[in-house]
């Protein structure tokens, strides 16, 4: 079931995630992909190293006179942080995604969109949105273009579109210019995690009015 990951995150996304400037919804896709992808994990470490260099390069700003004492006092009130012994997820969803769903795939509260397609919007800050999509094997995703940036990551099954084949772990980064028609691979129902900073423009299936209501 595990083919090597072929479609990775862009430098810009990894850098923004390392900087901590991405909307929460995008951060969730990045963290989920990095959980499965050693290559992007290594690249992320590089961008964090660059963050360290930026911090080191910073011109010092004066602190209040009692800052060190105040900090030592703060420390005296704090316990040593326990070492986390989190287990790596054995389910379909990596750990960061399970945190948002409240469990693995069986915990998802799907809402039907028609033709067997289902979605579940996950709670994040409102500067962008993220949802799980369930597309039956061989089915076509509604044809849509984009207003902003959209990240789609495959968790189960695979889909094909104008840019190639996307399987578990693969991420597709789509922007305004892109119109694509993803079709779920025939082998298995496809589950994707999709984040966007703008409402999707569906050209068919779901009327424009419903978009606002469904928050897609």
């Amino acid at each position, binding site marked *: 079931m595990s083919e090597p990951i072929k479609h990775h995150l862009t430098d810009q996304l990894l850098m923004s995630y390392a900087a901590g400037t991405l909307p929460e919804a995008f951060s969730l896709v990045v963290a989920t992909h990095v959980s499965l992808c050693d290559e992007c994990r290594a690249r992320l470490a590089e961008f*964090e190293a*660059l963050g*360290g260099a930026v*911090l*080191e390069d910073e011109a010092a700003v004066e602190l209040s006179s009692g800052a060190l004492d105040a900090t030592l006092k703060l420390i005296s009130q704090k316990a040593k942080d326990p070492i986390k012994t989190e287990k790596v997820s054995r389910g379909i969803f990596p750990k960061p995604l399970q945190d948002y769903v409240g469990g693995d795939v069986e915990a998802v509260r799907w809402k039907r969109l028609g033709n067997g397609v289902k979605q579940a919007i996950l709670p994040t800050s409102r500067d962008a949105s993220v949802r799980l999509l369930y597309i039956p094997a061989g089915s076509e995703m509604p044809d849509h273009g984009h207003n902003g940036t959209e990240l789609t990551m495959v968790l189960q099954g695979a889909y094909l579109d104008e840019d190639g084949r996307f399987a578990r772990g693969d991420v597709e980064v789509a922007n305004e210019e892109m119109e694509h028609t993803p079709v779920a691979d025939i082998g298995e129902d496809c589950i994707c995690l999709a984040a966007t900073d703008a409402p999707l423009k569906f050209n068919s299936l779901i009327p424009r009015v419903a978009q606002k209501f469904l928050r897609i």
Partner: protein
Amino acid sequence: MLTSASTRNQKRAPLGKVSYDVVSVLTTKSDSPARKATDVNVQDRAAKGAWVAELAAIRDRQDKAAFAALFEHFAPRVKAFLMKSGANAALAEETTQEVMATLWTKAHMFDPGRASVATWIFTIARNRSIDAIRKQRRPEPEDLAWGPEAEPDQEESMALQQESKKLAQALSELPEKQRTLIERAYYGDLSHSEIAAETGLPLGTIKSRIRLALDRLRHAMK
């Protein structure tokens, strides 16, 4: 790749992930308190100014002088970073103190084979800033399933500290315009399009300048 050491060290557990007792049972090397004391000296000599020894002194001896030295160097930089990231002076000061206190309470989790001290502090400051200033959650990748080689390796950690220094040097030697763009991307006070509006540069130019800066940094790290 900017730092090959960070790639090589991917499968390394943070210090303290496995307790020293367990490590000394699992490995043939002695990990007695005596060895820990010499570690500090070795690291001090090898990575002078990289603050690894000070952090180890906090971890091992709750050393307040070592903390004061780290505080003096990093707290004013963390505060500057937070202010440029959009916090006012009061919030930046308060958050800086929390960041520096976290440094103490998490000292046992720092792994010199995975990150430089500056990088580690940067990630703590970033996470506090997302939480306290942007009021958002931060989804983090799950940790790797650490293999049996969980003991921090002196040589690898020295290599990583050296490469971090090289990276800082390379950043400071970038042409002014490129360095500024990289820094602003990290402050996050401006999006790429906002940088474009402010500098009058078209968005494509911004992206290609950042890419160019990254290429230069990668080249400098070869």
